[in-house]
């Protein structure tokens, strides 16, 4: 089933959902399907259970950070300078707001599909609106991978059974895979027993030096 047919099948099965085909210009030609977060769970369930598609193998889940971008284009504008009308180049800047994106690469074990169907979800922004529905109830394989996206990108998956940091430690702040992430100067190491031991050893040595 090609992507257009898939899109219309989903639209028929899940009324009210907004789908968009995101074209991929590279030679791989893996075009993806952008789904709105409100209907994502229903769309995912349909994709998994529909007998024609049976996308039961959610192989890969990953996040992408798209920070705000500035597009600058040159526009010719007529201006009156010293009573003479001239055409002057003006640079107009438009800002595209940033967002976080989550991609699910779906395969079908039943139909043994070769190319993945990438399913994309986008957050509203990069600060307060980083909430997306968790698809772990549909595909169990998303459990650890959504935790990883939460940890490294800061997307909050509503409905995830166990949303915790997975690679970074519990006390860590910030999300290292964001494009604007900066290593802190005083890098916060995970406190270990060794630190206390070293501190005591240091005191001991300075006492020894004073004598």
């Amino acid at each position, binding site marked *: 089933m090609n992507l257009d047919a898939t899109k219309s099948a989903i639209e028929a099965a899940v009324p009210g959902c907004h789908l968009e085909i995101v074209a991929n210009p*590279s030679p791989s030609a893996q075009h993806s399907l952008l789904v709105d977060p409100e209907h994502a769970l229903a769309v995912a369930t349909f994709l998994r259970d529909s007998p024609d598609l049976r996308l039961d193998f959610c192989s890969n889940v990953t996040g992408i950070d798209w920070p705000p971008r500035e597009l600058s284009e040159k526009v010719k504008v007529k201006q009156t300078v010293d009573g003479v009308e001239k055409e002057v180049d003006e640079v107009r800047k438009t800002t595209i707001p940033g967002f976080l994106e989550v991609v699910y690469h779906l395969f079908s074990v039943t139909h043994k599909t070769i190319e993945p169907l990438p399913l994309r979800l986008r957050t509203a922004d990069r600060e307060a609106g980083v909430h997306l529905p968790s698809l772990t109830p549909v595909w169990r394989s998303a459990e650890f991978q959504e935790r990883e996206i939460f940890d490294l990108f800061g997307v909050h998956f509503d409905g995830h059974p166990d*949303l915790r940091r997975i690679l970074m430690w519990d006390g860590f702040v910030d999300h290292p895979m964001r494009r604007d992430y900066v290593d802190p100067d005083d890098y916060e190491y995970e406190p270990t027993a060794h630190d206390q031991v070293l501190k005591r050893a240091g005191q001991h040595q300075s006492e020894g030096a004073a004598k």
Partner: protein
Amino acid sequence: MSTATYPTLDPLAHSEQNQEQLLEISMGPQHPSTHGVFRMNAVLDGERVVRLKPIFGYLHRNHEKIAENETYLGSMPYTDRLDYLCSITNNWGYALAVEKLAGIQVPERAEYLRVITGELTRIQNHACLLGFLLQDMGSSGTPLMYAFREREKVLDLFEALTGSRMMCNYMRFGGCRTDLPAGWLNQARSFVAELPRFLDEYENLLVGNEVLMERTQGVGVLSRELAIGAAISGPMARASGLNYDIRKVDHYSIYDRFSFRVPLGQHGDVYDRYMIRFLEMRESIKILNDAMRDIPDGPIVDPKWKPRGFRPKPGEAYGRIESPKGELGFYLISDGSPNPYRCRVRPPSLINLTVLEDLCVGQNVADVVAILGSIDIVLGEVDR
């Protein structure tokens, strides 16, 4: 940036029954059976596991972030360090994804070289795993040394071909880095010819072993449905009867030309996962024999591909291969610059760990070690 609160691990708070009887133990991170720095927080009722949470990230160096700051080719040596037992298949997965992204063709001889080195990697990974698994279950020394003796021969072959035993850095986009040195094929042929004897010997030593069967049969059973839902791949999925081998499904490279079978298990227990690896080694021998017989002459890298100033057109690609541990995928996004905008590794070890708790609950704590060993994880890949 907003910092949200999130729950931390407190297993006792969630368990209902026998609060005062339960014991929480932490296995690892420096436990000999965890194959690296890996920790499991287990809640026990007597010897029975009630709850178990894996904790990892001790080897986390953010490979994906490093790849964003590196050129496409510059990431190739880093992929060696993901699953450090099978560096060549890691190279292969990454090269395949970049070739999909940029539309690069691979010459015939290079495909054969990839298959030969890839299958040798599979053999040495499976041999090692069987050794580790038996070591974990207490048969100290001998099986592991037998496996390492065979692995050593493969590593010698890799060293002669690539200059390095473990960190091979062998693949290039559109081919391979070096051609076979003189006499290499004969050395490899004699290794492969002797391999069935090793497998027979190993099998005689262990397959009918009553202690091993008692320890592993019916332990850590993974159902086929859960294997699909949790996207379990590789020998672990096939042990549960899931006929899904990406070499057969995707028809990537030249695997269509070789006749080999996909061994399937019935029970999905530790014993099946163990046996599947034996059988897969025998199938790999068939592929190796055919590939070494048919390998043609010719270029080993696409002559049109220029390593300098390599900039794929904007777009994205997901490429995957059947690595010895399962489905190894790379997801790349290009924005037209020399560095990838995003490089994601789909690590089979991490995703196969998703079901660790499901396999361990209800088993004895001693079986947890065998179950973890049968999943076949490498922490360099889990943590990345």
